[in-house]
């Protein structure tokens, strides 16, 4: 073992200078270190988490900024033009991408987020282009209906535990009932996609109630436990 004259301590391992005060150590070269270092030398890792957090927050700021900036322009189908469409499209795609990445640990949770985000972006885009109603007629029912089917398949294929997805699956199905609400309120000019989505949601709801009624109730009781 080497020795530090400054601190008068014995140092374990192959330190060339004292880990406490930095003074070069008396190393007896003939005798190899009898006591190895108690900790392994782990290479420095740059904090990936911090990089991701910065990227995430900057992206989010740029996207939200871009969406808000649209309000400064003319609001109609002609005014939107090719450049703004590409701009909005890129922002929407990037938003979906970062949300999918940040929620990748729970596929069901991610799906809920995506349905809400995509639905919101479509409605906003529709509003910017002078409100033709395409988002409510087509986009939202199609996204909701497809996500329910996709989620039911995914949790089965990935063998996700019931408790891990049930709450979010139920939420996705509930979102699937929203287009039926639009129909009820008379907001739609083309009811077929919404009706189809509603049927899918009701079927999924019936399936959840019959096959998974008990897990849903226990999970809800657990999550909302006071």
């Amino acid at each position, binding site marked *: *073992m080497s020795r*530090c004259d*400054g*601190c*008068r*301590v*014995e*140092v*374990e*391992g*192959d*330190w*060339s200078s*004292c*880990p*406490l*005060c930095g003074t070069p150590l008396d190393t007896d070269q003939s005798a190899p270190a009898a*006591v*190895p*270092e*108690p*900790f*392994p*030398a*782990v*290479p*420095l*890792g*740059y*904090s990936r*988490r*911090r990089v991701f957090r910065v990227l995430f927050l900057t992206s989010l700021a740029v996207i939200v900024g871009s969406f808000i900036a649209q309000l400064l322009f003319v609001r109609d189908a002609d005014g939107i033009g090719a450049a703004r469409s590409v701009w909005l499209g890129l922002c929407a795609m990037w938003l979906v991408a970062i949300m999918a990445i940040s*929620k990748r*640990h*729970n596929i069901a*949770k991610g799906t809920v987020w995506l349905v809400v985000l995509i639905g919101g972006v479509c409605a906003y885009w529709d509003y910017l282009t002078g409100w033709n109603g395409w988002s409510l007629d087509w986009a939202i029912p199609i996204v909701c209906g497809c996500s329910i089917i996709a989620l039911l398949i995914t949790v089965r294929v990935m*063998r*996700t*535990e*019931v*408790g*891990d997805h*049930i709450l979010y699956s139920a939420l996705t199905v509930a979102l699937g009932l929203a287009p039926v609400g639009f129909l009820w309120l008379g907001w739609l000019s083309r009811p077929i996609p919404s009706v189809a989505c509603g049927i899918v949601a009701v079927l999924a709801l019936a399936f959840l109630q019959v096959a998974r009624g*008990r*897990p*849903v109730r*226990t*999970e809800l*009781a*657990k*999550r*909302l*436990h*006071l």
Partner: protein
Amino acid sequence: MNKSATGRTWVRLDNVSNIFLAARTDADPKVFRLAAELTEPVDPERLQRALDATYDHYPLYHAVLRSGVFWYYLQASDLRPVVTAEDHHTCAPLYQTDKRNLLFRVSHHRRRINLEVFHALSDGAGAMRFLTDLVSAYAADSAPAVEPEVEPQRGLSIDSFTHYFRRRRHTPDPAFDAAAESAALGVADTLPAAPRPRWRVGRLIRPRIRVHRVKGTRTPDNRTRAVELSLPAKDMLELARAEGVSPTMYLTGVFFESVRRSAGDLGRARTFVASVPVNLRQFYPSSSARNFFATVLVSHTYGIGADDLGSVCRDLEAQFRPKATPKALEKKLRRLIRVEKSPILRIVPRPVKDVVLGWLNQAHNRHLTVAVSNLGRVTFDEPAESLVERIGFHVSAARPQFCAITHAGTLVVTFTSPFSETDHVAEFARILTGAGIRVRVGAARVTESELAEVIR
């Protein structure tokens, strides 16, 4: 078919443990490590067998942490722990939001077996039992001969809590329930009735004291700086006895002195405050491995009285002794139980709780200079006792801290800090070696230049 996860048993996380979730940062992930250094290199396969056997007896360690709307909760899992070679820096983060992994890890490096635990799961004294059983199983290379941890708990009349919170709940795993139960509530029934607590203004308004806080350079990748000092326990005890103080307060006094020496001019911040956790199990019998401690604060202001080491130690001892009596601790325990049962805290949504607890913790940290923790003396049963050479103990830290543990006459004091500097450790070692004690230093490499010596 998958087993229904909702059929799994779960217990909500107590407020005390919730602090560790709210207070964790990149530099301080609230993970602590217990390490057993053996007399021979560790055999990974044998260790895995020992871990498998021990794990089966500790339902609490099967828990994963999940979040609800109002609480975090511990949920039993089917995961199995896998022994790994030590490839992380010490006290690397264990809990990650949304990831369902176990809240402890077992690794090995040369002759060492390391057990790292997320503090929300257990405290040092609770985890020591797991390490003891793990090492015993390793030594015997068979299942531990000790009684499973859950047995005595069933016998004890556990708490109003069980009835109070779980009247309607289906519990398929009573062993997990008992093990994951809040330790403070577990002893709530054993306390005598107390008068209603009264709020005193004095408790809310603190006198303005300038508390000295250690500043430094953060380590390059936020890893914990850990330095281990090993010394003969007997020699340190003699020094403490000569000053007429307990070993913990002696070490705390030396710590204050070394921080003071390394700080140079103290300026106006001349009060040093240390937080010292006291294991409540010694006064309130509980076999729970959950967090069960109360912290006691001791302080010394330099420049207004005698500042030599002996006087500082006696000053600290005079403050610590009355605060660590069963009567004083009962008050703290009562407060813990009250917090646990508080109806207001129960309806606060969890994200809000996280933010508020985080702030409270930061405010508390501003009044602390250092933290110390002494786990005392540990022994193993044969054949493990003769297999173990040293035991180490340390915790990730938001400020300079030391953890001490004694085994077979060797006291290991491990300093941890979020900063690269080790000046205060050097001063600490010099004070001890100056008193004629033989000190051995083991350190984890943290800075680029330290690592460059060995990694090419």
